[in-house]
């Protein structure tokens, strides 16, 4: 696998990527920033889709969230909340833990988590399967 061939993946509009925001519009889709402690969900969209954000350039925010593991298909679980205004939040992202403010969590859209099948497939693999 050569990385030099990689940009091609994104240069050509990948159909599965374009299809991705569509299921986001299901009834239970909502930003991670509104989730309460103990909630489990699956990330269905990262980024604000061009909407402005009050602290960072939206594209920069999107990439930072992706780089720390918030990627479409990831399983997220709110583990802890801060004392004041229940902010920031500690989130389990797949098998690691990340702390962030609710303000940044606005850019992550989640949907209720459905238990993957018992075959041991990773959450993200399930999401990929669903996409294709």
């Amino acid at each position, binding site marked *: 696998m050569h*990385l030099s061939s990689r940009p091609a993946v994104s240069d050509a509009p990948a159909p599965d990527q374009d299809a991705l925001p569509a299921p986001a519009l299901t009834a239970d889709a909502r930003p991670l920033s509104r989730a309460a402690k103990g909630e489990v969900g699956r990330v269905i969209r990262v980024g604000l889709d061009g909407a402005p954000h009050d602290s960072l350039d939206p594209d920069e925010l999107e*990439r930072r969230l*992706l780089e720390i593991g918030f990627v479409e298909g990831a399983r997220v679980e709110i583990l802890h909340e801060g004392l004041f205004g229940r902010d920031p939040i500690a989130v389990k992202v797949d098998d*690691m*833990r990340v702390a*962030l403010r609710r303000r940044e969590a606005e850019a992550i859209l989640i949907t209720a988590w459905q238990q993957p099948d018992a075959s041991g497939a990773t959450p993200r693999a399930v999401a990929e399967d669903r996409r294709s």
Partner: protein
Amino acid sequence: MNAIAPVLQTAPRIALVGNPNCGKTALFNALTGSRQKVANYAGVTVERKEGSFTTPEGRRVQVLDLPGTYSLRARSPDEEVTRDVVLGRFKGEAEPDLLVCVADATNLRLVLRLVLELKQVGRPLLLALNMFDIARHRGIEIDIGRLSAELGVPVVPTVAVRKAGTADLLKHIDTVAVELAGAASAGANTWHEPSAEEVRATHREADRIIKLAVRPPTKPDTWTTRLDAVLLNPVAGLLILLTVLFFMFQAVFTWAQPAMDGIKAGFDALAAWINGAMPDGILRSLITDGVIAGVGSIIVFLPQIVILFTFIILLEDFGYMPRAAFLMDKIMGGAGLHGRAFIPLLSSFACAIPGIMATRVIDNRRDRLATIMVAPLMTCSARIPVYTLIISAFVPDRTVGGVFSLQGLVMFGLYAAGILSALLVAFVMRRLVWRGTVEPFLMELPAYKVPDVKNLVMGVWTRAKAFLQRAGTTILSIMILIWFLSSFPGAPAGATDPAIDYSIAGMVGHWLQPLVAPIGFNWQITVALIPGMAAREVAVAALGTVYAVGGAGGGGEENVTALMDTLGHSWSLATALSLLAWYVFAPQCASTLGVVRRETNSLKWPLIMFGYMLTLAYLASFATYHIAASLGWA
């Protein structure tokens, strides 16, 4: 393999890259031992850690520990250094011959994405799976051959904290060195800043590789979950944090005291011995009052720095720091500071110098600068002698409301004034001056780990050495300058006034008098403030000198009592309160300015600090003096 490898004349240079918290520094320590050097990168405030080691085949290898990052797409000055060194375009840094990407073997997902990015750079690359023992213990199975084949990068397991845990890595470096010597230059660099879609694509690729080569843990890390349930609990977690902080503050404040007293006594004895052994003269004065007093005033901070950094490194290695930042984020955020700023600020109650050095735990440059700028407003222990002297001379010793001592309340008020003004200044800096650049709070909460003693000792030693080398030179030169100003020219023969009156400091004091008259200072105070620049508490001794109490530079309990009486008679209450207000804000500490100069790597920030603190001090004293005078206390 050619054992002698005559082709490679120069020492190969390797650079360690990796995610934050991957054990990169532990691996760096394991490789280099004590053969390491800490400095700053040219022109930036980013810490540069370099070391060297010898491979089994006798090659001497230079190794650079680069700041941790999740991507080559730099978002902070630290990460820019990592990117530019990796790409070989950092001015003044040689290009690395080999990149060693360090991974926490228990947490591979994000680092594999980084490896895929690093591969595009075209340099020889190696993946070191650190903490391999913990991964195995948890039942994580990593097919190294498969991982290496899928990534197209050699993979070596390492255990930084165990002896011989780096043997495989060293062997590999020897192999690579031979290949390097034979090969032409590095491959083409195809790296470019990835777009969000490209980040997603590398994530998918990393996931695909993980599915093929890594079996998930059979025994997940339940300790971290259990500890977090308590340590991140909104109420219990905050209480535990405050307890930890209180303990740390106490330790820096009290445990260091005997050692500091010992150091002080040692230097005093040395000065006394030289005073006895040498004839009186300028040289003797330079040695005892300039050099020995100067060196002593630097080394005296060492116990506090060692204790503070022992705590900080323990908490960092344990994985508690990001949790503490999580708990404090909202509170500190109100003032526009980052959650991580509280440790430096708390340490500044003991002394701003270790506090400012501790701001290194803050990644973002502006957050760090804001914290550095307000750290000296925290009431440090050097202000206590001055506060005590003035309070006991002027504030009546009576109780208020039956329980509180009035003197204690004034002391508390001075502490509170410091904290409030620090929060206010931080607020102005972060919310008004640097508006619109709120750094997001986004950090990994790593799994808890038992700190390694060797790593701790190495870390504290590096800090202490850096402090002595870097701050020491600046502080010492300022001390000698202040000595010079207070000693020259000497008093003429038959002079009756104290010698300092005739010195440059004395002249400057008289000259500045009209400027400080509006805030109620007399010329004696002004003169005493000049040697007081060396360190706040020196002003007490200087006041003693100016008022000619207890002879030349005398200290001791009875002299302080005598000085209290003198001050009580010669100052008005308004002047005394004005001086207290002055001391809350005044940049009366050359060492702090010296450390700020070193830590920010610029003259601009210490000058700004000096300017804004001086302005605040003047305004506060002016207001205090006039309010007190209007109350009839003049």
